[in-house]
């Protein structure tokens, strides 16, 4: 049976992850183990949720470079509210983060869909804008873990299921739920299929009479909402939030999406691919730090290389470009 291109890509990614695990297990003692899984899976979860949002936007032949700033903004804002009032209900806090993210995403969406500004320009602008607003708003103050409610501080170590020393963190469970939800949405809902259609051929989508503007807008809103959720988890994970929180996450999310096989020119890719892409990137980064004490700058270089390699491999070997 002929495999879908997406399925093949996912297989290759899984294989690569296994190879990376095997490679590092030769270099680092006691590398493979419950500790690695517990730590990396929690770290992957945050990036994966962001990458799923990015996927929705990239599928429509757009891009959202402002997600890092949205994460920082929501993390700071929600952290501040929780510091001021420790009694805010957890659910309210989550909704606050998701809602704020969605609102910031909606700004991007309006500018892209109705003002006809290219997404790369819009989100490059809001990347800087949202961050600057955060700096002004926060007055360069820092959210401190000590002021946060206990349930939030405990959240990263909250387990849903445990097997001996292997833990499935709540954060990871949330990520898996989001992934399943959006995989189903993209595969089976007419909304999801139309996102693919728009990215595949905007002209054909327009002449088929799809409400392309509303669909693109919705993609940006959902991407913002997921970035907001990421911001909440970011706050829970790190506790101390400064104005530079989430800086550089846009690059990581784009890298995860591209490595995960979502066509940067829209129209193809899957949520599973994005999750695997995020896993590969985070695993590599984590392991490199442990084995070589690689500096932060080199980690950025690694991301750059991964993005370039993924896109180059796509266009050279898979002949996948904007034009068929």
């Amino acid at each position, binding site marked *: 049976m*002929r495999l879908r*291109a997406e399925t093949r890509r996912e297989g290759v990614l899984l294989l690569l992850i296994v190879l990376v695990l095997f490679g590092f297990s030769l270099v680092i003692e006691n590398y493979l183990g419950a500790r690695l899984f517990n730590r990396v899976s929690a770290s992957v979860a945050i990036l994966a949720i962001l990458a799923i949002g990015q996927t929705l936007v990239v599928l429509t032949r757009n891009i959202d470079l402002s997600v890092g700033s949205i994460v920082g903004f929501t993390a700071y804002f929600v952290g501040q509210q929780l510091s001021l009032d420790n009694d805010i209900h957890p659910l309210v806090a989550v909704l606050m983060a998701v809602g704020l993210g969605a609102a910031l995403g909606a700004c991007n969406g309006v500018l892209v869909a109705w003002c006809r500004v290219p997404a790369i320009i819009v989100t490059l602008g809001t990347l800087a804008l949202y961050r600057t607003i955060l700096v002004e708003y926060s007055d360069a103050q820092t959210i401190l873990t000590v002021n946060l409610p206990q349930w939030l501080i405990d959240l990263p170590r909250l387990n849903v299921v445990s097997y001996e020393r292997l833990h499935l963190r709540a954060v990871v469970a949330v990520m898996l739920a989001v992934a399943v939800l959006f995989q189903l949405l993209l*595969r*089976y*809902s*007419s909304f999801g*299929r*139309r996102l*693919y*259609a728009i*990215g*595949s*051929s905007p*002209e*054909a*989508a327009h*002449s*088929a*009479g799809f409400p392309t503007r509303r669909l693109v807008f919705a993609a940006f809103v959902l991407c913002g909402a997921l970035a907001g959720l990421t911001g909440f988890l970011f706050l829970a994970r790190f506790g101390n939030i400064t104005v530079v929180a989430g800086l550089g996450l846009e690059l990581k999310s784009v890298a995860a999406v591209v490595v995960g096989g979502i*066509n940067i020119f829209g*129209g*193809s890719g899957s949520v599973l691919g994005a999750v695997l892409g995020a896993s590969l990137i985070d695993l590599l980064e984590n392991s490199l730090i442990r084995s070589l004490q690689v500096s932060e700058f080199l980690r950025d270089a690694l991301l750059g290389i991964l993005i370039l390699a993924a896109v180059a491999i796509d266009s050279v070997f898979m002949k996948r470009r904007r034009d*068929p």
Partner: protein
Amino acid sequence: MSSPSADPPPGAGAAPGAAPARAAPVLEVTGVSKRFDMTQALDDVSLSLHAGEVHALVGENGAGKSTLIKILTGVEQSDEGEVRVEGRTVHLANAQEAQACGVAAIYQEPLVFPDLDVAENIFITHRDQALLVNWPRMYAKAEDLLASLGVRLDVRAPARGLTLASQQAVEIAKAISLEVKVLIMDEPTASLSDHEVRQLFRVARQLRDRGVAVLFITHRLEEVFEIADRITVLRDGEHISTRPAGEVTRDLLIRDMVGREVDQFYGIGGDWRSRTIGRQVCRVRGLGREGVFSGIDFDLHEGEVLGFAGLVGSRRTDVALALFGIQPADRGTVEIDGRTVRITSPRAAQQLGVAYMTEDRRKLGLAMPLSIAANVTLPVLRRYLSRLGLVQRSREEAAAEGFRERLRIKAPSALHVVGKLSGGNQQKVMFGKWLNTRPRIFLLDEPTRGIDVGAKAEVHAMVRELAEEGMAILCISSDLPEVLAMSDRILVMREGRQMGILGGSEATQEAVMSLATGEAGEEDPDAGAGRAAS
């Protein structure tokens, strides 16, 4: 998901060609007019389509066929007149509303979603009802639909790799699933191989037998006689005739399509034709480009105007692009001044004294935001450089000023921005730009497209002047009377092949049309080869 059905819609079963005139028409167009700036694209056109007929729409380039289709599919709106579907007056404000009325169109190059698979391409437009996609059911239905058309396609394969013919089949299947009443096929055969054309005709007949009204637009007259029950001719935006196919002869059809007297429009004196033509400048033999055109043979002399006639898709522009090195030829020879040359780039062509004036001013011709001076000196900027390698504005301006006066470009100065000029004046700037390269062979591609009558006359005068000065001119034009009036000889092309060269008294509108539509001319054994590879 809505229920796509392969069952024939109500009203099906009308015998093919059986006097449809008695039944009420499915689609009726009355008194439709449409104007674009200078041109009256449609003038009081009426047309009716009946269930179960294949209705052919023919006409020269610019006869108004495309405009009529755009109005019927809601892409353009008419200025006057009305469209009725099943007796109901409809206002087709966009493609969506046309589709809702049961009018769909397939084009020479279908608009598919390349990343989506075949089945999804068929059904994605009507998913409004259901929330979720039932993939197995969709695949099964797509398979049924395609099978009912006699088409074998993998419904799970992405549309990206499909041939044009298969993409058209997908579009037709989509139209059937939407239960269209009227299917417009706009030159669907232009890029198909003979075998694919057969298959398309079979499908078209099948649709007719199911009670669909098929409006079939084509440039190939033999296809018209093969498929059509009735034939409507448009000319210059007017409705000329509608007749049952059985009552029409080829000659009658061509006369309806052509209809005009040449010299009414182009009062060109006989003395210009009597001038002497100089020695041979260019000799072309067997020129071709894989899958595009082949077998082009002609000689070009000093002071001669060689016209290139043919219908849309006859690949005339491709020959010019090859001679100018933009898309170099891959077979045949070109001799200039008796020396065999290889023209592999526009730069090489210019060095050989060849200039090409494009039909697409906006995209390939002029830098619209720049001044006349900057445009005119662009191909030969080296001549205007100072010793430091910087452009000398004063010399540039002086040269452009010269062209402005000589070509009578209506602009306050040579520093005026080109984008703000009228079409006719832009055309003159383009002339100036290429004359500035001092060409000996000038390839003109639709030199009068989109400009008004006065500017046309000036362009004609300019071409004559250049020929009298001894320039060798190759002129592509879709305006048949214009080609006839301007050219010493006319090379007629059809689907990438040379159908013949007409000179002197042989060159009549009827003769040119007859070659261009493939009604005359030698039959070549590899006739299909040129268009099989699209």
